[in-house]
């Protein structure tokens, strides 16, 4: 690597060029989690779903919770990145890639949960062969596969110039990078086409992302079960997805920043801005949750109230109130003032939100199924080591995919940072001038420090 350009952003190449002991240690830890998951799934595949804690009437448990949770996390990426790109938020540059990678990696895991949940995985092709479009499950399959395709494309497009840089400068894996770079040389025409393609994908991906979590919620709201059959579920799930997505993104940013020493690129200001976004989503989540439960409470249907009280004071109070603390109390405490220690505070809030949103999914699925309308004897769902293993394996696999991506490709977009320096600075000034009354000239700032704060 000799190019002066490359030298300037050397920190961004470091994870790809050098591999430390930490990397192998991480692989081993993840490998153990994945192995646990694999053994669990193999046991389940051999013997049947009976090895889990699922039963009559709680026929959906951890797997479906994980499914909704992981698909929710996937909204971290493509959606946030697309919105930031389209709104020309300049601070997006170091974080869009990280966000997009989460989406693509986690979608595989999320969709996989449904396959794990099937009693007959050998017949999964029936969904295509004999698919019945009136079933919300088919909407899920369609929407998620579209989203996966679109976000993979949306991850790859802005990656092309960076792959070309790797092809020219890295000196290893040349074949892989040449193929993926598609002959990129960085001519003006290529750049123009690329920018156009990215813009088109950014617009396309937003409705797809919203449709994904809407139809995931439809799996529940299209039934007539108490606390599921609710018109708010579409927007509620989408908001929850973006909420957990931002939190997951902040956690990923903080970890990568720490491990690869990218403090120069991922600054407290990025965490602060994302923290503000997370705070807005906290309030929106609370508002929707409040509206949902208050409507149920005033409706006072006997079936609805059975589920309601089982969450508020009954058997599910620990998970319900833990969710309330993780999703509302902790973020509110940590996110209202982000002037100092923005990184630490947003990370604490984000970890809480990730846990809280998993619990939220659990609280939607299991209490409703645990309270059948007819007077069945009490049945308590308690997961076995199979479900725990599968969950650990899923998280492990997701993190492994992410770690491997970081090993092969720059996790911060090199060319976009460069573009920010070369074009962005000038563009922002021009754009700002276009917002102001005609004839405004740029003046040297008088109180420089105050402006920057």
């Amino acid at each position, binding site marked *: 690597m000799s190019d002066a350009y490359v030298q300037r952003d050397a920190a961004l190449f470091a994870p790809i060029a050098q591999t430390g002991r930490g990397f192998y240690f991480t692989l081993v830890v993840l490998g153990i989690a994945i192995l646990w998951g694999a053994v669990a799934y193999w046991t389940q595949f051999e013997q049947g779903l009976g090895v889990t804690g699922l039963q009559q009437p709680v*026929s959906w448990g951890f797997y479906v919770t994980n499914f909704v949770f992981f698909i929710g996390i996937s909204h971290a990426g493509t959606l946030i990145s697309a919105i930031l790109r389209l709104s020309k938020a300049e601070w997006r540059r170091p974080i869009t890639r990280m966000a997009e990678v989460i989406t693509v990696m986690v979608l595989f895991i999320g969709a996989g949960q449904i396959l794990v949940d*099937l009693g*007959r995985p050998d*017949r999964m092709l029936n969904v295509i062969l004999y698919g019945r479009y009136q079933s919300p499950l088919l909407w899920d399959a369609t929407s998620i596969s579209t989203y996966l395709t679109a976000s993979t494309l949306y991850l790859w497009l802005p990656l092309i110039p960076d792959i070309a840089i790797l092809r020219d400068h890295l000196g290893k894996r040349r074949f892989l990078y040449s193929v993926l770079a598609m002959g990129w040389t960085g001519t003006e025409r290529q750049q123009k086409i690329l920018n156009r393609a990215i813009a088109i994908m950014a617009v396309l991906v937003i409705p797809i992302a919203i449709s994904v979590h809407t139809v995931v919620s439809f799996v529940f709201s299209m039934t007539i079960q108490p606390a599921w059959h609710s018109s708010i579920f579409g927007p509620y799930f989408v908001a929850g997805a973006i909420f957990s997505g931002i939190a997951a993104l902040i956690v990923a940013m903080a970890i990568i920043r720490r491990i690869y020493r990218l403090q120069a690129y991922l600054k407290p200001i990025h965490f602060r801005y994302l923290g503000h976004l997370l705070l807005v989503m906290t309030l929106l989540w609370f508002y929707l949750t409040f509206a949902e439960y208050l409507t149920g409470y005033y409706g006072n249907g006997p079936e609805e109230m059975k589920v309601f009280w089982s969450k508020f004071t009954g058997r599910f109070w620990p998970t319900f109130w833990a969710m309330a603390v993780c999703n509302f109390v902790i973020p509110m405490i940590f996110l209202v003032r982000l002037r100092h220690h923005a990184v630490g505070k947003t990370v604490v809030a984000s970890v809480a939100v990730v846990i809280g949103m998993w619990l939220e999914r659990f609280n939607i699925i299991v209490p409703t199924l645990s309270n059948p309308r007819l007077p069945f004897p009490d049945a308590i769902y308690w997961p076995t080591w199979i479900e725990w293993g599968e969950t650990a394996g899923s998280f492990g696999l997701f993190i492994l995919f992410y770690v491997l991506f970081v090993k092969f490709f720059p996790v911060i977009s090199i060319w976009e940072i460069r573009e920010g320096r070369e074009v962005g600075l000038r563009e922002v000034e021009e754009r700002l001038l276009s917002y102001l009354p005609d004839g405004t000239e740029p003046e040297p700032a008088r109180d420089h420090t105050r402006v920057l704060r």
Partner: protein
Amino acid sequence: MALWGMVIDLDRCTGCQACVMACKAENNVPAVGAKEAARGRTISWMHVLTEESEERTRFLPRPCLQCDDPPCIKVCPVYATYRNPEGIVAQIYARCIGCRFCMAACPYNAKYFNWLQYQREAPGQNPDVSLRPKGVVEKCTFCHHRLQKARERALAEGRGLAPGEYVTACAETCPTRAIAFGDLSDHGSDVARLARSPRAFKLGEELGTKPKVIYLSETEGHRRV
């Protein structure tokens, strides 16, 4: 076309569970064993629920209610469960992918899952009913195989199906004759007459599922009229 239905007189039911046993024997419903039963995996197409109040205990035998507008078939992704033209809600075991969406959608919890391989071919099983493999959903079929048999017999003898020729195992067994079975579309039939009784009510009628299993009860029926 016939519209098969059932009337269960709760005032006659003694909770003896004869219908449950008859159903299990007739339909090769597996005995899952004590360990699985303790984990809540009992399969019982006909299930006698117990409702206890201060004054008395009431029994509620619950087969599949064979809804005319079944919530379970709306959600099936692969056409594994459907309502046939005579109103029976059927399950195709060879098609089912085991996603259990229908179980989550059924407001009566009338669908059951084969969490493990619960049985293999053995002597004493009913040859007219197929065994279910692990990983699929199963449910009460109104002893549909009995209808097929009765119809074949009638066809061979060159006549139509006579009333009472097709009854389910539970109706046939009930010692107090609490269960009546027959064609709801035939106004003269016993079931149709009982279904019009002032004591008649439907389980979860407000859900719009239009069950074809109708209950009779002095208290319930009168409360609703």
